[in-house]
Every structure is written in structure tokens, then in C-alpha cells.
């Protein structure tokens, strides 16, 4: 209450502050009028005019005093002081552009780095997902214990989804989704886009609206009624020029007419790539949705390739719901496959984890790294401010001597730091906006999906808070030092030798900068080494000088298998004829890119009789169709037997080493050649092994490879194929020729991206690359800040001890002695910082061990190299002023002192 009334009084006073000069003029006027009236009265009572005037003046008293008082009443003292400080800071900053630019740039770098990363962190990890009650949505996965070693978890199947959906459970709603490849033809250039088959309630489940048209109706999940699509806002704009009449029209997808019933909201967020589950691989963009035409079937031969999202009921219990789903799936399996002896478990993954799970740790680590950079910038700024304070010692001493309070001196210095912080912060925010835009368009897929490139409130708040905290943190210590200058000593000694203390703190700050730079450099080094190892790792195929192009044949011309075969044959032989091409072949799925369940099958031995009894003990393998040239083109190594030829009479296969080990653990690779196996079923034809090749690992190397069965593509022709071309020179240079060759055969085929294998593999390790690049950038900036800080400190100490150096030289010290002396003194904080930083980096890397690939946290190569980089840079920063010191002319130095 008391505080409130005080506040009210304060606000009331505040009203008078801006007009206080005007009020003063008015009071002056009033006072004059008063004197006149009074004098007139005295004249009326018989006084002489002069006398009357004098008497009136006497009666009114000291008018200057009155005016002063009124001015004071109307001004708020500290507010005036602050205004003064701000003007003072502004003058200082403009008077010393060198210092100001250095300080502002330093701070802007620190603020922009942390703000950019914070913004990404916020949008990926913190911002509520754009769904209705997103915290109640989970993705349901199934774990089959016997399969766990090969497949840690399985997605659901359509049948499992139907059983779950129709049973009573603690979940209020469920939705299913699976990938769908779409070839758009007709209206424009043929084009392949990513699509998804979704349950009719998909959009209402997520709580997102369709921006024009309508959503799916429940009865459109029936086969025959599912020829309708909702397309993305992006596709609508890109391909159909945002034509409002598109809704209601039919478009041709995979050669069949589909009615467009709606356009999705532009902000729709759906899982892409393998975010939902590695076995449910969507395209990198999903642009078309169609209802799942779900029919009830048996579980036998069911494809486990659908994601199921569940929404916990408002009063639902998560664990109870999970157990219900588990009971349903096990009961279903028991009834339909009584011989399958297993107990599956269900796991529920929060939807946030689907989007952020892969990158969370990396983002947190990057945020930590950016915080270290900001800290470096802080130390650097504090260092600059200390230097400023030191050069202004005289001024402060004079102010103190003239009666300024210590608080005023602190306030002056803090005002300067605040000025720097505000300008640096503003520039930092501008840079961060650019940075976030860059990260949001060039970052890894999950970041691109989630990050909003626009300036947002949390980001702004963070940047401003960071700037203010930085200003206070950096400004207070130098301010405190400034307020403690002994006026007498400072004035007497001309502001020279009294900075021993400030020099010490500056050396400590430089040591801190060096420690932070070392920690960042070392971490960057470890990540870089890890990344190099990832890229160089043996994946079982070549990465360099290989081109890959996805080819999808559709339409009447390729309706029949022989016409497709003819196309592939012609394409491969034309490719081989191109100059610079040493081998060419085709494969149904590139091993570098995430596997697809559509192509994974259980491999059975010829003696297996009852499917349900053996299925869980037999390995799962990827089945890939290839043309004869694939192995040579991809650089796959033959271990035994032979490669496939173009004319294979019977069912044959080349299998990967790991499959021989799983099927025939006792046999060598060579003796596996000639053995027989079956695919999928006990009654399917026997397949003869003709060759054994090395394993092909996925690009990211993030999981053990599934074994692979390579079949001649005529025997295993599912879906689109990828052309693989091995080149003699730079593969990218050959891309136009490859494109032209495809056009020559059929100019109607959609032109798809032709990428080098290195690009493809890089994209699978985009998260690692993202983390490594940003950490390296942060480390370089920190190194630069540290080096500049060191240079400044050493130069300053040389300038301060010119006399001392002159004296030494005069007394017979050699130039090299001086050089060594200055250099050694300068390098001291560097060595301490290096040691501290290395210890910190190793400790930090231990916590992040999971992010390193085949690199120990103590990796001597990375740490050694980075230490060397730091020492060389710091050495240069010390050497320059040291060599200047060595050139000091003793006579001049002594005289000038």
C-alpha cells in the first residue's frame, strides 16, 4: 500500500518532468507580476515608486532560490543523471570509433551466435507443436523381442491399426499414416512428389484445418472411394499456380484420376523422411494425402509399414493405454497366428520426440558451444572496457577528486557498457535473423522442418536479455575498478603505473578467453575428426566419383515389365557408351538411403516347413533388384562366387556376407555359394546363391546394416529404380550428359535430381555436419576474439613498460632477451588457458560421446592439432607486440618517461 502510494506520487511527479523548463519560465513570470502588484500597492499607500519596488522585492525574498527549488522539485535527480550518462556514453563511443567498433562487433558476434541457436532450439524443442493438445499425441511402435536385434522396433500394420482403433482404450482417437509415391502427370511436366496414405481422420486428429476445400470423410477409407487427394499448399502454388478452381478437379496420379478435395494449410507439419520410423520412409517433402483404403485381412504377410498416432483421452492413463494396445496386438497374433510364440510389447513415443529426438542432443550441445562463445565475447568486452578504464584513469581520478561519488563513476562506466550492449545487441539480432534464415533453409531436414525463419518474440526476448546481462557482467567489474582509482596516485603519476591491478585482471581475462577458445576448438576438432571418419568409413560401396539418379517409369508406355526392362537395358548401355563413364547399373533402393520395409523379407531355409514356427528365428533381409552393372558401378566388393549377369535363367541371388553368417553360421563365404533359400514364405521358390558380396551400410552408419539379397531386377521388379554411374573424373561434371541420355530415350520422363554419391551420403549425416560446421565457426570466432584480446593486452603492457624496456636495453639486455621476455609474459595466460580448456573439452566430450564416431574424447590427433592452431595464433598475437618492444630505442624511451 505504502509502495503503491509512493509509486503514485512518483508517477504524479513524473508528469511535471518534461515541462519543467516551461514551468520555470511561468514561475518567473508570476514572480514578476507579484512584485509589480505589491509595488503598486505600496505606491497607493504613499511610497515613492523606487522605494515601493525595493520593498516589494524584499518581501518576496530570494527569487533565484525559489526558481532553483521549483526546478529541483520537478526533476528526478537520478533520471537526470542517467540521461547525462547516456549522452556521455554516446560521446565517448563516437569519439573512440576503434574501441566502439571492436566492442560492438565482439558483442554482436556473441549475441548473434547464441540467439540463432536459441531460436532453432526454441522452435525445435520448446515451441508447442502446431497440433491440438500436442502433448497427448504419441506414436505407437511394436517391439518383437526376437526381432529386436535386427529391428529395434516395428511400425504398425493397417490391421493392427484397425484392431486398436475399434477397441475401447484409454486413447480417444487414433490415426494411421504410411508413405505413398506419387507421379503427377497430365497438366504439366511429369513430376514425382512425396505422398502419404492417411486415415480419414488424419487432419482432424492433428487438429489442423484444411485451408480450402474439405477434409476426408470416414466413409472414404473404403476401397473404391479413396480416389481423392488433399494437396499441400506448396504444391498447389508451385504446380498449379494457386488456381482456386483446382479443388473439385481431377488430377492424374500414377496414371489414375484423383479428385482434389482440399488444400492443406501452409503451416501443416507432418513427419517427413524417416522421422516417424525408419521403416516408414516418407519422401523429404510430403505434398499429397489420400485416404488409406483399409480392408480387414489376416496378419499373415501383412506389411508392418504404417505409423499409428494415438491421442490420450483427457482422463486416460498412458501406461494403462499402452498395456491395452499391447494386449490387443498379442491377442490378435495369438488368434491369427497360433504357432507364433512371442509376446510383443508396445512403446509409445511422444510426438515431440519424433521431430526432435534425433537432433535434441546436438542442439543442446550447440547451444552450449554458442554460450561459450558469448562468454568469450563477454571476457573480450570486459577486457576492452578495462583497457578503456585504464586510459581514462586520470579522468576518473579528477572526477573523484572533484567530489563525484563512486556510484556515479560506476554508473558512467556501466552506461558505456550498456551503450555497447544495446548497439551490439541490435546488430546481433539482425545477424541472428540472417543466421536463423540460413539455418532454416540449409540446416538438416528436421531443423528445416521445424525452424521458423522469422523473428519471433522468444528470440527477441532472449537476445535482449542476453545483451543486458552481458553489459552488466562486462561493465560492472571495470566500473568497480574505475571507482577505486586512488585519486592522488593517479593524478601524480600521470595515470601510468597504477594499472598493475588492471593489467593483472586483463591477463586473467585473456587466459579465460584462451580457455574458452581452446574448449571450443577442441570440441570442433573432435567433431571434425569424427565427421571425417564417418565420411571415410567403409560402407561397402564407393562414395567418390559415383553419380546416382532416380528413374521412375510410369504410364502406359511402361505398363508391362518387358518394356521397362527394355528401357533399363537401353539406358544402361547408352550410359556405358558415354565418355568418362567406367561402369553403370541400376538398383531398386540405394543402400545409402534409409531402408524401406516394402523390400524387407524374412529369409527361410529350404527345410523350413511351418512359417509361424520359424519366422522369428530367421533373419530379415532387404531384397534389392539390380542390373548386372550395379556392382561394378557402386564399387561393391565380391567375396565369393560371381556377380549377376543380364541373363539369369533361374531364381538366383547374390547375398551379403552378413546374411551368410546368419543363415549358415558354420560355413565360409565361399562355401555358401550354391546354397538355397526361400524368400517370405515356405512355399515360395528356392533361390540359389551365386555370389557373396560385402555388406552395404546406410549412409549415416547409425545402425547395423540389414543383410541384403540382390536379385536380377527382372525377378524382383518393384517400384522405381536408381541409376548408378561410376565416372573417371568429377561426377558432377557428367550430370548434364546423364540427363541428356535419359531424355534421348524418353523425353517425357520426369527429370529428377542427379546427385553424387557423396552428396547422398552427406545428406544422411546432415545433423553431424550441421553440428560440426557450426561448432567450428564458433571456435574460429572465439579464437579470433582471444587472439585480438591477447594482442591488445600484450601491446598495452609493452606501451606501459616502454621505459622499463628502454632501461633494460640501456643496461645491456639484448633485443632477443626483450623479445623473449615480452613473448613469454604474453604466452603465460595462453598456456594456462590451453590447459584448462583442454581439460574442459575432454570432460565435455565425455558427456557427448554418443555424438562421436570412432573418435575418443581424448583423441590425440584432434586435440593436438587444435592446440597447435591455438598456440600458433596466440604466438603470432604475442610476437607482433613483442617484436615492437625489441625495437624500442632506449634513449627515446628513457627521455619520454
Amino acid at each position, binding site marked *: 500500500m505504502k509502495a503503491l502510494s509512493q509509486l503514485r506520487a512518483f508517477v504524479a511527479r513524473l508528469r511535471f518532468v518534461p515541462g519543467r523548463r516551461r514551468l520555470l519560465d511561468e514561475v518567473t513570470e508570476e514572480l514578476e507580476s507579484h512584485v509589480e502588484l505589491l509595488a503598486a500597492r505600496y505606491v497607493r499607500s504613499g511610497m515613492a515608486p523606487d522605494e515601493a519596488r525595493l520593498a516589494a522585492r524584499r518581501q*518576496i525574498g530570494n527569487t533565484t532560490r*525559489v526558481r532553483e527549488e521549483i526546478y529541483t522539485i520537478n526533476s528526478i535527480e537520478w533520471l537526470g543523471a542517467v540521461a547525462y550518462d547516456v549522452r556521455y556514453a554516446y560521446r565517448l563511443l563516437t569519439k573512440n570509433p576503434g574501441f566502439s567498433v571492436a566492442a560492438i562487433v565482439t558483442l554482436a558476434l556473441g549475441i548473434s551466435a547464441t540467439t540463432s541457436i536459441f531460436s532453432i532450439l526454441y522452435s525445435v524443442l520448446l515451441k508447442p507443436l502446431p497440433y491440438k493438445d500436442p502433448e497427448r499425441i504419441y506414436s505407437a511402435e511394436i517391439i518383437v523381442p526376437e526381432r529386436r536385434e535386427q529391428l529395434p522396433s516395428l511400425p504398425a500394420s493397417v490391421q493392427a491399426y484397425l484392431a486398436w482403433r475399434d477397441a475401447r482404450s484409454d486413447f480417444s482417437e487414433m490415426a494411421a499414416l504410411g508413405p505413398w509415391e506419387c507421379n503427377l502427370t497430365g497438366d504439366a511436366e511429369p513430376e514425382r512428389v512425396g505422398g502419404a496414405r492417411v486415415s480419414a481422420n488424419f487432419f482432424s486428429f492433428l487438429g489442423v484445418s484444411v485451408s480450402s476445400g474439405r477434409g476426408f470423410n470416414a466413409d472414404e477409407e473404403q476401397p473404391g472411394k479413396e480416389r481423392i487427394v488433399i494437396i499441400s499448399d506448396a504444391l498447389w502454388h508451385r504446380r498449379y499456380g494457386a488456381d482456386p478452381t483446382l479443388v473439385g478437379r481431377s488430377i492424374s496420379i500414377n496414371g489414375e484420376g484423383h479428385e482434389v478435395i482440399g488444400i492443406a494449410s501452409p503451416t501443416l507439419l507432418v513427419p517427413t523422411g524417416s522421422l516417424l520410423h525408419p521403416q516408414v520412409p516418407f519422401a523429404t517433402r510430403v505434398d499429397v494425402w489420400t485416404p488409406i483404403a483399409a480392408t480387414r485381412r489376416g496378419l499373415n504377410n501383412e506389411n508392418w509399414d504404417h505409423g499409428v498416432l494415438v491421442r490420450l483421452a483427457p482422463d486416460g492413463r498412458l501406461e494403462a493405454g499402452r498395456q491395452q494396445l499391447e494386449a490387443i496386438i498379442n491377442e490378435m497374433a495369438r488368434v491369427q497366428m497360433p504357432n507364433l510364440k512371442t509376446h510383443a510389447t508396445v512403446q509409445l513415443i511422444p510426438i515431440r520426440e519424433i521431430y526432435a529426438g534425433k537432433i535434441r542432443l546436438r542442439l543442446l550441445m550447440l547451444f552450449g558451444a554458442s554460450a561459450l562463445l558469448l562468454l568469450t565475447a563477454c571476457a573480450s568486452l570486459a577486457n576492452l572496457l578495462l583497457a578503456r578504464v585504464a586510459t581514462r584513469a586520470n579522468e576518473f581520478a579528477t572526477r573523484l577528486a572533484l567530489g563525484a561519488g563512486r556510484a556515479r563513476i560506476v554508473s558512467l562506466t556501466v552506461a558505456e557498457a550498456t551503450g555497447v550492449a544495446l548497439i551490439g545487441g541490435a546488430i546481433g539480432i539482425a545477424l541472428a535473423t540472417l543466421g536463423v534464415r540460413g539455418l532454416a533453409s540449409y540446416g538438416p531436414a528436421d531443423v528445416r522442418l521445424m525452424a521458423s525463419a522469422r523473428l519471433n518474440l522468444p528470440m527477441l526476448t532472449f537476445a535482449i536479455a542476453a545483451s543486458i546481462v552481458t553489459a552488466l557482467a562486462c561493465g560492472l567489474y571495470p566500473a568497480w575498478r574505475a571507482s577505486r582509482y586512488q585519486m592522488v596516485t593517479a593524478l601524480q603519476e600521470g595515470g601510468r603505473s597504477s594499472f598493475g591491478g588492471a593489467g593483472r585482471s586483463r591477463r586473467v581475462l585473456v587466459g579465460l578467453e584462451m580457455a574458452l577458445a581452446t574448449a571450443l576448438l577442441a570440441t570442433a576438432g573432435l567433431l571434425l575428426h569424427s565427421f571425417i571418419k564417418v565420411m571415410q568409413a567403409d560402407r561397402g560401396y564407393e562414395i567418390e566419383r559415383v553419380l546416382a539418379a532416380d528413374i521412375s517409369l510410369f504410364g502406359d508406355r511402361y505398363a508391362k515389365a518387358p518394356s521397362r526392362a527394355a528401357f533399363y537395358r537401353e539406358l544402361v548401355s547408352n550410359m556405358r557408351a558415354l565418355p568418362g563413364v567406367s561402369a553403370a547399373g541400376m538398383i531398386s533402393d540405394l543402400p545409402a538411403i534409409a531402408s524401406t520395409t516394402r523390400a524387407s523379407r524374412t529369409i527361410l531355409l529350404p527345410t523350413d516347413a511351418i512359417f509361424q514356427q520359424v519366422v522369428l528365428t530367421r533373419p530379415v533381409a532387404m531384397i534389392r533388384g539390380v542390373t548386372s552393372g550395379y556392382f561394378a558401378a557402386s564399387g561393391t566388393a565380391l567375396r565369393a562366387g560371381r556377380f549377376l549377369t543380364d541373363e539369369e535363367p533361374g531364381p538366383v541371388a547374390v547375398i551379403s556376407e552378413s546374411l551368410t553368417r546368419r543363415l549358415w553360421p558354420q560355413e565360409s563365404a565361399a562355401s555358401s555359394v550354391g546354397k538355397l533359400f526361400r524368400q517370405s514364405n515356405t512355399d515360395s521358390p528356392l533361390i540359389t546363391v551365386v555370389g557373396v558380396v560385402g555388406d552395404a551400410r546406410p549412409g549415416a552408419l547409425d545402425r547395423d546394416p540389414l543383410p541384403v539379397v540382390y536379385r536380377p531386377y527382372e525377378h524382383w521388379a518393384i517400384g522405381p529404380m536408381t541409376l548408378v554411374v561410376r565416372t573417371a573424373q568429377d561426377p558432377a561434371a557428367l550430370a548434364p550428359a546423364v540427363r541428356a541420355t535419359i531424355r534421348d530415350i524418353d523425353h517425357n520422363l520426369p527429370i529428377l535430381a542427379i546427385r553424387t554419391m557423396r552428396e547422398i551420403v552427406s545428406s544422411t549425416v546432415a545433423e553431424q555436419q550441421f553440428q560440426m560446421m557450426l561448432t567450428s565457426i564458433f571456435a574460429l570466432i572465439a579464437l579470433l576474439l582471444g587472439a585480438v584480446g591477447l594482442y591488445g593486452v600484450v601491446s598495452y603492457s609493452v606501451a606501459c613498460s616502454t621505459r622499463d624496456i628502454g632501461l633494460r636495453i640501456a643496461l645491456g639486455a639484448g633485443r632477443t632477451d626483450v623479445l623473449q621476455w615480452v613473448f613469454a609474459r604474453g604466452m603465460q595466460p595462453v598456456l594456462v588457458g590451453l590447459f584448462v580448456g583442454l581439460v574442459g573439452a575432454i570432460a565435455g566430450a565425455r558427456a557427448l560421446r554418443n555424438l562421436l564416431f570412432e573418435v575418443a574424447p581424448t583423441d590425440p590427433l584432434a586435440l593436438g592439432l587444435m592446440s597447435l592452431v591455438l598456440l600458433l595464433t596466440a604466438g603470432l598475437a604475442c610476437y607482433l607486440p613483442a617484436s615492437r618492444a625489441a625495437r624500442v630505442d632506449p634513449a627515446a624511451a628513457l627521455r619520454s618517461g
Partner: protein
Amino acid sequence: MAKGTQSGTIDVLQGTLDLMVLTTLESMGPLHGYGIARRIEQISEATLRLNEGTVYTSLMRLQQRGWISATWGTSENNRRAKYYAITRSGRRQLTAETKNWERMAGVITRLLRTVQQS
């Protein structure tokens, strides 16, 4: 509101002058500074020697607290003059302060009496 009236203790206005100015404006209606000074002089029957300039400091203080308001008008010598009038919150304050003053005066009177008796 002055803090004194809230806690129940006696806290006289910034100065006695402030109280005199408020009372004058309450009884006489809007006045300019000169008029206020004359009125105080008249009431005090010249027993109070006042530096009349301080009336203006007092007026400023009262304005800040919102107890009086000022409007421009014309004075007797045809000059522009500021006329001050008591506001509603000024009246409330005056009542409270008058009570305070009377209590205070009572206490002091009693106190002086005891001093005389002893």
C-alpha cells in the same frame, strides 16, 4: 495521500505554509499567488513574516500532489496570471490535515501546560 494519514500517526504537511495555502484556496476560491499572499497577510494580521516567493514553491508542491490545479487568467493589473483552485482530493487532504493539525495542536497545548505546571 500522505503516508501519515494512512498509518494514523501525525504527519504535518510538507510545511505549515502548504496547509495555509490550501485553507486559503478552500475559503476564498480560485486565487493567484499574489492574492494568496495578501490573504495570508490579512489573516495573520501581519504577525507572520513571509518570504512571499516561497508561496510559489508551495503551489508547485501542491500541484504535483494533485491537490490544487492551475488555470491561466488575467490579474488586476491586466497581466497574465495563473489562478489556483483546490481540487477534490485537495479538499479531502485538507480535512485530514486539519484533523491532524488539531490533534497535534491539542497535544502540544497539553504538553506546554504540563511544562508550565511542573
